[in-house]
Structure formats: C-alpha cells, structure tokens
C-alpha cells in the first residue's frame, strides 16, 4: 500500500472518530449541565400523597413529609409542600423510616484493624445491597475471622463496633458513633466461680472509678487503668449499653442482678428461654434482641428444630412484646450472604419483622422492632428511628407496606439525601414490581 493511501485512510478514520467524539462530548456536556442544576436545587424535599408510617405515631393517609438540610420539617395529612421544594410523588406508595439493624457484619467495612471509623468502605457492594433493602443504619461489626457457611459467631468480649449510616459513596456521612456498645461474653463454664470473679472485677472497677473521680476533682494525676479492668470500667461508666449473650435463664438472672447491683444498662442478645421471664425483663427495662426465624445453623440436622418446652422462634418476638419488653428483631444472618442461602440475611430484615407478625406481633410493633426500638437500644433515638420533626431525614419510599414481602424500596434517603433509587440502580432491577390491583 502506498504511503499516501495509508495516510488518507488514517485521516478518514480520524475524521470519523473526532466527529463521533464531538457528538458524544456534546451529550456529556448537557448531562453535566443537568447535574450542576440538580445540585443547585434547594435542599428542601417533600413526599406528597403517600401513606406515611411515622412509627412514633399513627399511620397518616395522603400524608406529606417535608425535610430540609437533612432534618425533618413536617409530617401531616394533605399538607402542601413548601415552595421550591423538590417533590417526590407518593400516591399509592408508602413512606416509613429507614430500617435500623442492631447488628451487621462486614457491611460497609473494608478493614477492621484498629478501629472502624478509619476502615469504612462507602463503596462496599454489601452496603449497597443493604441500602436497597431499606436499611439505612446499622451497628457495624467486623466480619469474623472464621466465617464458614456465613455462620454467625457469638459476640465476643471487646470486639469493636460502630453505628454507621449506609450513605453509599459518601464517607463523610457514615459514622454516627464509635464504639456503639460494650460486648461482654459470660464465661459459661464454672459459672458460680466466674460470677464471683466478675463481681470482684466490678468492685475493682468501681474503686478505680472512685479514685479517678477523686483525682479529677483534685486535678491530680489519674490512676493507671489495667487492661483487664478496661471493659469493666467501660460497663460501669454506662456511656453505652452493654450486650450479654446469656445461654440460659440462670445466666439471665445473673446478668439482671449484676446490672441492678452496679447500675448499668444491659441488652440481652438472643436469650434462649428468656420468654419465660419476659415480665421480669420488662420490669427491669431490659431490651432483647431476638430472631423471628428458625434456629441458627446447626450441624446436627437430625435433631428436632426446637426442643420440647421451648417456644417456636416465630412466636418469641410477640411474647416479649406482649410482656412489654423493648424488642429488636435480628436478621437471620448478620451479613449479606451472596453465596449462601438467599433471603436469609440482612437484606430481608423486613421479612423477619413480617415473620414476627405471623407469630402474633402487631404490624406497628413489628415495624417499630426494626426502626425505633433498635435506635432506642443503640441510644440514637433522638436522631433516628421514626419520622418526627427535627429528626434525621432517613426515610424510605416503598412500593407497598414495608412488612409486605412483595414491597420494594423505591427511594432511600439518608440525612435528607437520596442514596438509592430503584429505577437507576442495578440492584433488584431484575425483579418486577408486583402490587395489588
């Protein structure tokens, strides 16, 4: 081929390419303009005409929710949206607060070495899936080292935890508080002996706190804190709730007596038979974290699903709620299991709440058990968990009632900003919306 011909061909190709690029870049510029305008829009938003479930109050039909700068302004029936607000259509749709999961594992965390705040991953895929499932806030716990079969491990003492919002792609909006809770594992063997050892430690911690207070009052040097006492001191300081995972009711009684004696708040994580003493727990204001589905994975698959004299898991949340306990419903698995059994993880928290309804809980209580109650247990109910004036605008627009398994989250707002939109997301796109006609 002669050089000229080749050059001509190259030129032709270049011309065609540059023409194509010109058009595509023109389109890109237009898109950018649109985006800039979107950003300029006021931060006032409103959902109009939706069935609003504020959780803290009764259901509002044809309700309007408005929010500005991340805080909720108003909730009410047939209110006009403020001028200049970005209006989201709510006709035929439901609005409820974003779900709060009191546990989660490996969601939104990239690395857990040291602390959680520096290891957050706003681009985590599992975070995106949890958000698409309506979960806006979780207590993040690092994934366990041995996580075979996506199995949950008992919460161990001293593990780090943080309350994070699932603001996808926005690291700055994620952290709410760190650490979230104290984790205290009861030494189950030789319980009596350990009980006395624990009391000894608590007494030492009490002494330490007294001497520290004295030193602070006198403005002298604070006494040194030994590492073995750290957890006990943190529990007695009661700046955050303490989680116990008692194996039986005997241990529950020990926990209750300790909390009464030393004056700290406890949360019971999956107390096995504690429904028998639900009234005691209610009287002591002890919240419980319970699952509403099955037992945890067990290698002994030949045995009965639950033993004689036990209550079926589906009825347990209702039993606690009926007695007046603060109940928070746990997901079947704490993480998102893409390789395991679908529909049994954090992505189906609302289905777990629906199971509790099947077990006798009311719709309102079940919804509260995955929104306001976990917020109360995590002590962030001044900001999260319900749609009330002045609270964070963390809310969902759903295609149906949040406890209906057919419902999908259409839009999820956190701190007033839209972080998930079903129409623009790839998550759950393959599933068509089904609704009653």
């Amino acid at each position, binding site marked *: 081929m002669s*050089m000229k011909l080749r050059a001509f061909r190259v030129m032709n190709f270049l011309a065609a390419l540059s023409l194509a*690029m010109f058009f595509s870049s023109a389109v890109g510029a237009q898109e950018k303009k649109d985006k800039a305008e979107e950003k300029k829009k006021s931060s006032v938003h409103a959902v109009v005409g939706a069935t609003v479930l504020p959780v803290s109050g009764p259901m509002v039909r044809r309700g309007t929710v408005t929010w500005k700068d991340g805080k909720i302004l108003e909730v009410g029936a047939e209110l006009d949206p403020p001028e200049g607000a970005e209006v989201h259509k709510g006709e035929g749709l439901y609005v409820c607060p974003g779900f709060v999961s009191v546990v989660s594992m490996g969601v939104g965390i990239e690395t857990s070495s040291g602390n959680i705040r*520096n290891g*957050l991953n706003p681009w985590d895929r599992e975070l995106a899936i949890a958000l698409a499932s309506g979960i806006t806030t979780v207590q993040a716990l690092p994934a366990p080292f041995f996580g075979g079969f996506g199995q949950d491990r008992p919460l161990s003492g001293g593990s780090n935890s943080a309350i994070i919002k699932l603001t996808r792609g926005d690291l700055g909006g994620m952290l709410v508080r760190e650490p979230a809770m104290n984790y205290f594992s009861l030494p189950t063997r030789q319980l009596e002996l350990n009980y006395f050892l624990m009391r000894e430690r608590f007494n030492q911690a009490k002494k330490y706190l007294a001497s520290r207070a004295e030193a602070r009052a006198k403005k002298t040097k604070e006494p040194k804190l030994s590492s073995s006492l750290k957890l006990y001191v943190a529990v007695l300081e009661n700046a955050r709730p303490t989680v116990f995972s008692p194996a039986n009711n005997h241990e529950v009684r020990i926990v209750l007596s300790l909390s009464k004696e030393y004056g700290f708040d406890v949360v019971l994580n999956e107390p096995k038979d504690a429904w028998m003493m639900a009234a005691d727990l209610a009287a002591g204001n002890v919240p419980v974290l319970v699952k509403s589905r099955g037992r945890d994975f067990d290698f002994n698959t030949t045995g009965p699903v639950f033993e004689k004299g036990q209550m079926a898991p589906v009825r347990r949340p209702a039993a606690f709620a009926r007695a007046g306990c603060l109940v928070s419903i746990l997901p079947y698995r704490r993480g998102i299991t893409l390789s395991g059994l679908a529909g049994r993880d954090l992505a189906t928290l609302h289905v777990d709440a629906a199971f509790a309804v099947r077990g006798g809980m009311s719709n309102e209580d079940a919804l509260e058990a995955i929104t306001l109650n976990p917020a109360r247990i995590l002590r962030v109910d001044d900001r999260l968990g319900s749609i009330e004036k002045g609270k964070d605008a963390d809310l969902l627009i759903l295609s149906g009632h949040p406890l209906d398994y057919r419902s999908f989250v259409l839009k999820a707002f956190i701190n007033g900003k839209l972080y998930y939109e079903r129409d623009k997301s790839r998550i759950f796109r393959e599933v068509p919306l089904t609704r009653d006609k």
Partner: protein
Amino acid sequence: MKMKTTQGHINAVRGGAWAARLFLPALLFASSPAFLGADELVAYRAAKIVRSAGEVTAPGLLIVRDGKVEDVLAGDAKPPEGAKVVELADTVILPGLVNPLSAISQNNYRSGPGRASQSNSSPTDGRKSVGLSALNLKHEIYRRLGRTGYTTFAVVPNDTKGIIAGQASVIRPALGKEKEAKELVLSDSAYLMLGFASGKTWYDAGNRYLKKAVDDILKEKAAKKKAEEEARKKAEEAKKKGTKPAEGEKKPPAKPAAKPPAQAPAKAPAKAPAKPKAPDPLTLLFKGEKKAFVRVTSPAAISHLFAFLDSLPMKFQFVLVTGPQPPELVELILERRKQITAVILEPRMGRLPDTSVYVNTAKLFLEAGMPVAFVPLRDTIDGHREVFFHLAAMVKSGVLPHEALAGVTTVPAGLVGLDSKVGSLSKGGLANFVCYDRDPLSGAARILSVYVEGRKVFEDDPATGKLSGEAVR
C-alpha cells in the same frame, strides 16, 4: 599429525567465531551514523514524523546534532550542509515513550511490580530512599530497556510500600558504555511517591509523617511571625525612645548592650560550621516545591485519602495513580481538580460493579479535561513493548489517538518535569525516538529501531527478523 591439523583447524574456526563476536558489534557501531564523532549532524527522512502528540510532519526530515533535536523539516526540504542523510523510507518516527512510574530497575522486574492498580502494602517512611539507589548497572535490564520503545523511565525505589515509598529518579536505557549508574540519570528526584489505604494504621502513619511535616511548617511560620512582630515592637519602642531623647538617656544601660556582642561571636562560630541540612522532601512538598504521586487503588482508599487530606491544615497538589474506576469515583476525583493535577492509569477497561458493562475510565477523565498518563499493564520489557496494543483498545472505546499518544509521551514527560527534554521532538530536546513500520496504534505495528540521544540502541530488520543494536544482549 592428522589429528593435530584437525584440532588446529577447529581452533582456527573457534578463533574466527570469537573474532566475529568481538568485532561484529564494533562494526555495527561504526556503521551507526550517530556514533561517527562528537560534532555529528544527521538528518533522518521518514514518511511521517510525529513531533509530539497531535503534531505531525509527513513526510518529514528530522535533524539531529550531537544527540539533540535541531529541527524537524518537511520531507522535501534540503538537509543542512554536512549532514549525513539517513533514509528511513516508509517508517513513522515517534518521540521516545516516557514511563512516569516504574519499578523496572529492581530485581523483581519479571513479575511486574509498579502497576497503577497495585495495592500499597504497609505504611513506611522511605522519604530518604531515591530510585537511583536501587540501580544496579551490572544488570542486563538497563540495556534491554532500549528495545521497548520507551526511552525514559521514572523509577521508584520501593513501589509496593506506602505511605512514603521514596523518591523517583528518571533514567534512560543504558547504551553499554556507562561505568556508573549515575550516567543514566536525567533527574535525581523527580517526585515523591506516596500511597494510602483505609485502616487506622494508615491514618496513624499519615499523622506521623504528613501531619507532622505540616505542623513543623506551621510552627516555623508562627515562630517567624513572632520574631517579626518582636522586631517590629522593638523598632517601635526604639522610635518612641527616639522621640524622647531627654528621658531615654538613662534607660539604655551598658550591661545589655555589652552582653549581646559578647554572646553573638560565641554563638556564631558554633552555628556556622553546622552542616547545611538537606531540606526535608515532605516540607518541600507542602511548600509546593516538590511533586508528588499518590497511589490509591480501591474506591474506599480514594475516599479515605480525600478524608485524610481534608484533615490536614495545608494542602499539596499531586498526581493520582489508580486503576480503572467506575464513573461515580471519576466524578469524586474530578471534584478535586484543583488538587489533582493529572491521573496515571493503566490502558485497560474497568467494569461497572456486578455487571459486564465496560467503562473507559481514561475517556471519562479526558472528556473532563484531566490530563491522563498511561503506564504499561505489566512493568516488564514485554509489557512496555506491547503498550500500543492496549492503547489501541482504549482508542477503540473512545480515547482519541492523539490523547493516547500524549498519555505515553508529553503528559508523563511533564509529570516528571522533563517536558523540555523528552516526550516530544522539539528543538533542543534529546534525540530520543522510535521508528515504527506503520501507525503504532494500528495493532500490527512493529518497532524497527530505537534511538537514545541520537544513538541507535536497537534495530529489528523486518526482512531477516534479525535483531541488533545495543539493546540486544
């Protein structure tokens, strides 16, 4: 006797072979026009000369004097008097390619470190180690660099570590006669290589090194301000005293006036011999006198890098080194256009997470006006040789040909601060160039020859497939 003669014959043949091995390179040397003398002037006539990305003379005449580009003329121009004319016929001459980030000088070059998307291992402080220190001239790799078409490499001493991996030195391929590694070096410390990842250890390291550097600068500034203010106050006081000479006569006592001169000579000699401290590269970085490349791989690492940089009271400009990213991340990076001067990428496509939808990250950056430099996919000799193959794939999906070419020539040359010397065939620049048999982005292109500072270091004869030159060992 018979045996002996045979043996002697064999010996003679062997001797001849040795002689041939000894003299053949010498002959090649002699025939190479660029090695004729100190005052040489050579004109290369080629079908197409790419002076720099997007600027083409076709056909063209490249005039080289003493290893530097003197001019690029039209092909039918008369070569200057005394010039030896080399006819390169149907070839395309490109400026020698520039790699802005490589670890090829290290012994593990075969496994290909130095990738833009390689993660940083553990945080270390390598601010004192310079790429030059890792060079081992005895290694064959430095001569082989010449056959890649790349004629400039910025080498980092320890690229797999953060938070300060070290300072990069810019080198050229060896021509075979160097005695010291220094002779390869175009620039001692072109930039500071940094890295960041998520996790407390990285934040701690960041505070230990970067934040400390900022604090030192701020302290120094505050001290200066204080000293200045004190000096001003003293001057004002002196003025006041000057206005009241009658009263002030008693005030200036003899003692303090006598003391300072007594102290000053005692202190001054102690200060003067103290060796001049080499400026800390991190301090220079925050003062804007030093360039920095920052490598972050994962989207989370990018978010954490930005969060950490925002926590610093002072800012510095840097070049972001990263792998293919989804569009959201590109937007996030483009929001910091003022801080991020350019992006270094690998010429490969990214994918939208959980889909098989491909994204051309480089195109997204280029559309937004962000300069993009490309590094080879593998940091090996072969990786460098096949860079245009991957660049062609990028061009197919939307990067313009001249942008792709700029990404391996002018842009990286600018990033390492040598744009007047390398990356283009401009007047006064080094005569580093590569001859291809056709448009290098055509996919079937073949390197015919490579010249470093006017010397042919590599030649691939398409008729015989025979390789020759300095780069073939």
